[in-house]
Structures are given as structure tokens and as C-alpha cells.
């Protein structure tokens, strides 16, 4: 008996030693090295950081987290570091929308991260992480929006009959933005119930306008970087927001809404349709928090006049600084944080992973657990990520261009300016920004 116990103990010890050794081989050995990092903070991002001690145990290195702030504050801090010449850290959280403005502070990860590792990522996500031919970031998880809707409204026979009589086609989750608008106006009974809602300020509404502009066959710039969003497609996109606002199909305060407001609004059960990120799916279907739990459907984002679906997308990413004194350790950490097992952790919480195998595996997990809704969410969002996703132009002055577009959109929606005049005014200002940034002569 004692021999058996001794053999088991020895076997367990060998497995433990072997396991440690294997992990160490996987991630490298950096004994005594301290890797300085700046990471995005917030409830949905933190669970991943609980895994960092495993990397430390495997490599012998330590991770010193210098910052853990929301992305806008982190962006501000990184800009201050650039200005002060204090880029004395190695790994930073990044985002596809922010990356172009940082110039060459981050290294090209091609050749640093193993090609076979990169091959396991969604190729569109990698393409969207590439700035001027350099892969400056490794995508951690992605964001793209699809359309959540309240199922019971579409199953109600009285709604079906009334809608058909009014609009001449069958009531079903919208396939186009025109249908989306019809249905939002049809369902709205302000102030108790609204057809839909949209984010109404900052880069959020610029992004929504931009994706609709593309779906309608337009573009922000021509091939020479002249602003072209004041086109017919641009006007049609702006009018979509304005007509919903004028018809009171959206809440009156919508121009002040950001993501929390739209998410909480749909969860409150007072909104029929909600174009939103995958991360909200779990909340919407959670009876403890949401009044629409069990009554939520999701379909791919609608198409515009150009026959294309809206697909404004971005990825939360990790980058390595050019000034990093141990790029191997940095590459090891970001590879660890985006490996299959780490992405499964984030995917289980509803975030959209960037490894295609994780899409399949997490869907299988949800199905095995009988969670058909989350499995459908993974299906819808992974398809949309693979086929519809596109980023804003990956140019340094993107944020500044966005800052001239969104106030103009608000003026057009509120009627402070004629919509076409508002777009023309914004296009003229955007042209100045592009000239100042050296894109236009």
C-alpha cells in the first residue's frame, strides 16, 4: 500500500515538474526580469489579468502593471509619455482606432510573434491591426455590432397584421436600414416605449454614421484623402438618425447616449431594437439584470443601399514598444495573454475572441451547457467579424476628424443646421485637419 502511495506521490511530482517544464519551454525563461506594462482597466478586462501569475510562474519574470485605466485615460497617458520621452515600459494595451496616431512607437510583430501563432488568428482582425504594413498590435478581442431585438414583438399577430397593412411587407427582424427605420417608428410609443436608440456623441456616433455611410455605398475620403462624407450616401445616413429622432422613435436624450445608456436602455425592456456589441448579450439575457431576458433575438446588422452590411469594428489589442529592453519577454507575455486558453476565459464572459478556433470551442461549450442564446450570439458575431468588419481609416488624424464630424451630426439631427449644410461644414473642417496633418497639400 505504502509503495502504491509512494508511486502516486512520485508520479504526481513528476507530472508537476514535467508540466512546469513544458510551460516554461512554451513561454521562455526570463528569470529575475521585471516586465513593465500599461493595461486597460475595467470590469470586463480584469479577469484576464488574473492569469498573469501563471505566466510569471512559468517564465520566472515579474509583471509590473504601471497603469490600469480606461482606454481614454490610457491614451492620454501614452501621449504624455511620447511627449515627455518616457516610454520606459514594454507592453501596452492598444486599440485599432487609436493605434495609427501613435506613429512608430510600437514594433512590427511580424517576425516577433511566431507565424504559426499568427495563423491561428482571424485574418481580418490581423489585417485591421496592421498600420502602414506593420502589425503594430496583437488582437485580444474584437468588437462589431449586430442587432438585438425583442422577440415577442415580432411574434405578436396584431403587430404582424398592423405592420403589413401600414408598410406592405411582412414584419420580420430588419434586413436593411430602411426596414430598421420603419420598424423602429412602428414600435415606438414615446415616452413609454421606443423603437430603437443610438449612441449620440463622441467617436461613438461618428462610428455609427461611418458604418452606415459605407453600407450605403459612400466613403469618408476619396483616394487622395479629400473628405467625401457629405455625399448623397452621407446625407441619407444622417437623415436616418434625424428621421428617427423627429419621429420620437428614439429617446429624446439619445444625443447624449453612450454605450452604457443604450445597453441599460435595451435591458430595461423599453426598446424594441438595439444595434450593439456582443459583450452585452449575456447581460440582456440575464433575468437578474434584464427585463428582456428570454425574449431576446439577434440578427446580423442590416444592409444599406450599397448592399453592404454595417460593420464598424475594432479590436482591443496588445502592443510592444520600440524602446522595450526585452522584446522576447514582451512577445511571450502578449502571446500568452492571447493564447487559446486565455481567449476562452474572455469568450465565456461574452467578449468576442480573435482566434477562430475559440469561436468554435466556446460555441460548443455554450451548446453543451444548453445556452442556445449565447451559442447563437457567437455564431452571429463570428460571421459578422469574418465577413462584415471594417475599421475606420487607419490614419493618424482619425480622432481629430471624428471630432469635427460628430458635432455636425448632432447639429443636423437637432435641426440647428440643415443636414446637408452640417455635413458640408464638417467636410470643410475635416479637409483642414487633413491638410494640417500633411495628407492633403
Amino acid at each position, binding site marked *: 500500500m505504502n509503495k502504491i502511495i509512494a508511486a502516486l506521490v512520485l508520479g504526481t511530482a513528476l507530472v508537476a515538474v514535467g508540466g512546469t517544464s513544458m510551460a516554461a519551454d512554451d513561454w521562455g525563461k526570463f528569470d529575475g526580469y521585471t516586465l513593465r506594462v500599461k493595461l486597460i482597466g475595467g470590469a470586463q478586462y480584469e479577469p484576464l489579468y488574473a492569469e498573469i501569475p501563471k505566466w510569471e510562474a512559468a517564465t520566472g519574470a515579474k509583471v509590473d502593471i504601471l497603469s490600469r485605466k480606461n482606454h481614454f485615460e490610457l491614451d492620454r497617458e501614452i501621449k504624455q509619455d511620447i*511627449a515627455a520621452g518616457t516610454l520606459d515600459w514594454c507592453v501596452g494595451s492598444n486599440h485599432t482606432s487609436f493605434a495609427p496616431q501613435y506613429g512608430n512607437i510600437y514594433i512590427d510583430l511580424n517576425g516577433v510573434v511566431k507565424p504559426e501563432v499568427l495563423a491561428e488568428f482571424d485574418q481580418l482582425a490581423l489585417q485591421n491591426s496592421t498600420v502602414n504594413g506593420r502589425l503594430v498590435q496583437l488582437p485580444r478581442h474584437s468588437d462589431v455590432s449586430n442587432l438585438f431585438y425583442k422577440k415577442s414583438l415580432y411574434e405578436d399577430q396584431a403587430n404582424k397584421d398592423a405592420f403589413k397593412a401600414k408598410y406592405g411587407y411582412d414584419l420580420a427582424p430588419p434586413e436593411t436600414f430602411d426596414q430598421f427605420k420603419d420598424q423602429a417608428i412602428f414600435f415606438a410609443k414615446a415616452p413609454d416605449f421606443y423603437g430603437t436608440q443610438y449612441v449620440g456623441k463622441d467617436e461613438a456616433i461618428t462610428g455609427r454614421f461611418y458604418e452606415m455611410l459605407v453600407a450605403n455605398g459612400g466613403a469618408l475620403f476619396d483616394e487622395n484623402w479629400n473628405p467625401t462624407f457629405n455625399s448623397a450616401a452621407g446625407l441619407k445616413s444622417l437623415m436616418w438618425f434625424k428621421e428617427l429622432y423627429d419621429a420620437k422613435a428614439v429617446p429624446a436624450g439619445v*444625443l*447624449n447616449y453612450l454605450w452604457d445608456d443604450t445597453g441599460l436602455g435595451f435591458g430595461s425592456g423599453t426598446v424594441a431594437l438595439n444595434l450593439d456589441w456582443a459583450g452585452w448579450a449575456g447581460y440582456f439575457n440575464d433575468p437578474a439584470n434584464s427585463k428582456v431576458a428570454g425574449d431576446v433575438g439577434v440578427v446580423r446588422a442590416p444592409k444599406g443601399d450599397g448592399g453592404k452590411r454595417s460593420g464598424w469594428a475594432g479590436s482591443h489589442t496588445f502592443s510592444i514598444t520600440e524602446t522595450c529592453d526585452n522584446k522576447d519577454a514582451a512577445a511571450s507575455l502578449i502571446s500568452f495573454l492571447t493564447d487559446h486558453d486565455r481567449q476562452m476565459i474572455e469568450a465565456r464572459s461574452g467578449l468576442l475572441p480573435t482566434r477562430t478556433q475559440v469561436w468554435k470551442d466556446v460555441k460548443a461549450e455554450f451548446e453543451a451547457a444548453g445556452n442556445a442564446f449565447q451559442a447563437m450570439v457567437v455564431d452571429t458575431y463570428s460571421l459578422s467579424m469574418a465577413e462584415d468588419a471594417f475599421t475606420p481609416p487607419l490614419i493618424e488624424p482619425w480622432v481629430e476628424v471624428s471630432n469635427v464630424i460628430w*458635432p455636425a451630426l448632432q447639429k443636423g439631427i*437637432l435641426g440647428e443646421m440643415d443636414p446637408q449644410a452640417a455635413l458640408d461644414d464638417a467636410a470643410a473642417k475635416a479637409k483642414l485637419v487633413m491638410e494640417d496633418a500633411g495628407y492633403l497639400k
Partner: protein
Amino acid sequence: MLFRRRERATPYLLLMPALAIMAFVVVIPLGFSLYTSFTGYRLIKPETISDFVGLRNYQRILTDLEFWVPFGRTVLFLTVALNIEFLLGLGIALLINQVTWGQRTLRTIMMFPMMFSPILVGFQFKFLFNDNIGVVNNALQSLGLTGFAVPWLVDGFLAFFSITFAEVWMSTSVFAILLLAGLFAMPRDPIEAARVDGCNPWQTFRHITLPFLMPFAYIAMAIRSLDVARAYDIVKVMTAGGPAGRTELLWTLIARTGYENSRMGMANSMAYVSTILSLLFTWYFYRKLVAARRYMGGLE
């Protein structure tokens, strides 16, 4: 001779550490930011710090309505917020001064709003004033007072009211505390003499208490005017200066220009023009303070 010269230099030598610290902490940063206001300095391109553009940044903003409208709105915001805070603070101080039991607890409770981070206050009021799921609209509709959703953070007047409300909620206690300190320091003799002379409570307050409190009020106003002229966090969270620029204040504009757009040279020129506002208000309140002290027979 040498000894006497050394003796004369001693005070300056003793002052040197303090002067050096002042230069390091105040003069150098101010001089640096003043210099950058004459450049095309972009935060993400450190090399642009040497792009000297002369007065171009100032010329641009001085002729730009998108700067002067927020400037005017900041003056209005400051004026409205300070007056409301003064009136409410005075009322609270007078009431607490009458309390004979639990006054310390009340004073502590009164300070609670000041303990919140402005960002937290911004989020709190953003959700209170949310038109769809906010408490204010739900209460108004449930009580039958309105049959529609009031667009608190969108309508120009209401959005201005909402950000002012949040600012006043957070900072009224500054006035209350300073005025309460004034009430505690107030001698009882003039009040008792006024009563003996037949003054009613209003006359006593108007001609004795209020003039005595005014120096305290002007100190509070000078401090708060500097705070409010730099208002940023609450407005950034509640409206981000929108919609359509309806609540844009100087510092939401300057922060967006400097950090989001990375145009730090332009942002610094805006900041220097905006300091005129702070200087004017400080000068005005200082004059009023001196006048109030002279009225009370105090030192100038």
C-alpha cells in the same frame, strides 16, 4: 567691506532655495506652456515643439466663434453657479448656526458631496437625468406631472441647468462652511445692540450679519471662481460639451483640443486666453473683499 557685502547677501542666499523651488514648480512649467502656445506643438510628435508659429494660434482662436461661444458660456456658468451656491450656502449656514444639538454631525453630513470625485458626481447626475431610464423623468411621469420624456441633457436650457445643478450640488458646502465659520467668529454685541435699538430680524440680518459675512463670501467666491472656471469632469461625463456644443465650456474644448486632437500648442494658447477670465474674476472679488472689509472698518 567684504564682510558687510556678505552680510547684505545673506537674505538673498537664504531665499535662494525657496526661489529655486518656486522657479522649478511654477515659473518653468508656466514659461514652457507659454512658449508652446506660440508653436504648432502636437503631443504625439515631440519634434513639433520647435515649430514656432508666432501669434498664429492666438490669431486663430481670437477670430473663432467656436472658442468665444464656450468662453461666454463659461462666464455665464460661473456667474449662475456662484450666485446659487452663495444663496444656498448662506441659507444652510444660517440654519445650521441655529441648531443647538447635533451641529457637528450636520456639518460633517454637509461636507459629504465634496468628498465625491467629480467624475462620480457626473455619472450620478447623468443617470438621474437620463430621459428614458433616469429617476427624475420616471418620477415626473409616475406622478403625472409630465406626459413626455423631458430631454434634460439635450435641450439647450435644460442641459445647462443640469450641469449647473450637479456643480451646485457638489460645491455648495464650500460656501456653507466658510460662511458658517464667519457666523461663529461674529461678535454678539452688535446684534444685541441692534435688537435693543428695535431692529427686526430682517434688519439685523441685512445691516449687521450680512455685511460681516461678505468678506467670507468673497473669499469663497474667489476660490470657487477659480474652480468653476476650470470646470471639466462633471461636464465631460454628463454631456461632453454637447449636444451640438450646447454645453461646451472652455475646458471641455481645451482638453479635446490638447489631448484628443493632440494640438497642445493650440490648447495652451486657449488656456492662456482663458486665464484672463480667472484673473478678471479674482481681481473683481478681491476688490469687493477689500471694499467689504473697509465697510466693516477692518484692515485693507
